[in-house]
């Protein structure tokens, strides 16, 4: 088991190194000069100021040293938690800004992922091989997975927020409140959180339900289900066995889907101007704050890697076969 974990950790370490390298390479090897384009967009007319800003930015990026030296400098900065200084919120370090916004994104992502996974799976298992339910579930589920996250968010926001007026339409909490551990603030926070959560939950639901439905049908064809049926076991019991077996591929599916779901969360946040990483990405793009953008990229990658590792651990805990294989038993 520890060898397995070690191998997984090694793989994630490699992925992290590659991600950091990509992050380092993009500003340096993309066609065009990032410093020049940043300054162009700022449209400075004074040539002397332009000269000074160019040298300043070159120095900040470390573009005036040889390439390998730049690479190591980038890594050492990373280990000191130094991702550079934001251009948009000038004197503030990038790391601080991101850390301030992360709780909102996590608060949105984790409940949406976990709940839609659980509910979707149960619903799919329930609908499989049921005549009416199955026929309605399939098209609805496929349409839901095909819905772009931001469109679902827009529709919900418009229907429940603007027209219905049940929920606030923007922000993470009311403008009249300051963050504190009080009851009114908490209620306000939840009412702002609910719509983004709901739209992510609904979009996620369809995919899990369909996946589970297909897997259950496969499992019901398996030998053990036929055997149980021949023994006269009740339908519910067979279903329960099938469900347990079908869960394993769904856990792997969760790891594969993670990137898409996170991207969806970022888009949803933009619609609701929810103060998480997605809105931060939009702001940093609008303000040409490339340091901040790259910092967010690194944080998202690290988050995805950690989540993947957690899913791996859960998989080992849930599936006894992987444990047998790891301790050297017959495969």
């Amino acid at each position, binding site marked *: 088991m520890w060898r397995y974990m070690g191998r997984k950790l090694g793989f994630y370490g490699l992925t992290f190194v590659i991600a950091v390298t990509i992050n380092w390479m993009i500003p340096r090897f993309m066609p065009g000069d990032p410093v020049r384009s940043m300054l162009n967009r700022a449209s400075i007319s004074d040539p002397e100021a332009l000269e000074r800003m160019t040298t300043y930015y070159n120095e900040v990026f470390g573009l005036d040293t040889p390439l390998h030296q730049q690479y190591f400098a980038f890594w050492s900065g990373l280990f000191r938690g130094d991702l550079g200084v934001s251009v948009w919120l000038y004197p503030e370090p990038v790391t601080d800004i991101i850390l301030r916004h992360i709780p909102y994104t996590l608060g949105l992502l984790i409940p949406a992922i976990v709940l839609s996974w659980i509910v979707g799976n149960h619903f799919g298992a329930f609908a499989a091989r049921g005549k009416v339910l199955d026929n309605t579930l399939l098209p609805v589920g*496929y349409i839901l997975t095909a819905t772009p996250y931001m469109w679902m968010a*827009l529709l919900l926001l418009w229907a429940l927020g603007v027209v219905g007026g049940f929920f606030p339409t923007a922000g993470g909490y009311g403008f009249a409140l300051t963050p504190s551990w009080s009851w009114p603030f908490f209620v306000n926070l939840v009412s702002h959180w609910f719509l983004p959560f709901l739209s992510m939950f609904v979009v996620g639901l369809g995919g899990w339900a369909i996946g589970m439905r297909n897997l259950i049908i496969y499992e019901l064809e398996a030998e053990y289900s036929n055997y149980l049926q021949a023994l006269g076991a009740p339908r519910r019991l067979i279903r329960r066995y099938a469900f347990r077996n079908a869960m394993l591929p769904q856990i792997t599916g969760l790891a594969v889907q993670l990137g898409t779901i996170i*991207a969806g969360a970022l888009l949803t946040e*933009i619609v609701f101007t929810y103060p998480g990483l997605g809105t931060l990405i939009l702001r940093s793009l609008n303000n040409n704050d490339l340091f901040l*953008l790259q910092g967010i*990229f690194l944080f998202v990658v690290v988050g995805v890697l950690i989540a993947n590792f957690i899913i791996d651990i859960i998989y080992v805990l849930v599936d006894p076969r992987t444990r047998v294989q790891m301790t050297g038993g017959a495969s």
Partner: protein
Amino acid sequence: MGTTSFGQDIWAQFVHGLRSTFVTGLLGGGIAFVLGTAIGFVAGYKGGIVDEILNVLTNVVLVLPALVVLIVAVAYLDVRGLVVQALFIGLTSWPWAARAVRSQALSLATRDYVDLARLSGRRTWKIITTEIAPNMSSYLVMSFILLFGGAVLIAAGLDFIGLGPTGGVSLGLMLESSVQWSALQLGMWWWFVPPGAGITLLVGSMYILNVGLDEVFNPKLREL
């Protein structure tokens, strides 16, 4: 279908935007398909160390969140075009297709007729294209359909963040401008409902087409 707050016709934008959606889908999905199947076939057929290396590569790209990589990469471009966007999407969204093709090719590579072809001294790519690929053509068609749908969704996401083709029209860009000019607060539902519905219908019909094909090729899934 009404106009935007600048008096631009929504219907005209929609029709024109649909074209760029199809172009990114076909091109991005196509590039991802070619890359994914090539890597999957080579990994599954060759096996051994080649397989190991390609497998690690596939898993690395699979774990990295595609859209976030794209945002960072595209943000550095001064002028963004449709083709470049499709190229980037293709370069990041191939891994799961490679994985699926690899596992299929792995089981087909040990068949007798493949051995026979190998004994007769054919070249590797010829064996792959004439012996292995035709036997999983249904699988390949379906993975292209899924890649097409995925590329359309990713492109819409990129457009929505404001990294779409500069000065172009696409369904994602329509959504972006509707949010930017607060169509929501003004109650202009005709601005943001059609583009999203277009994307949803397009991708959703792709998925349902896929199910239909799946039931044709795989009788196990059919209703009893």
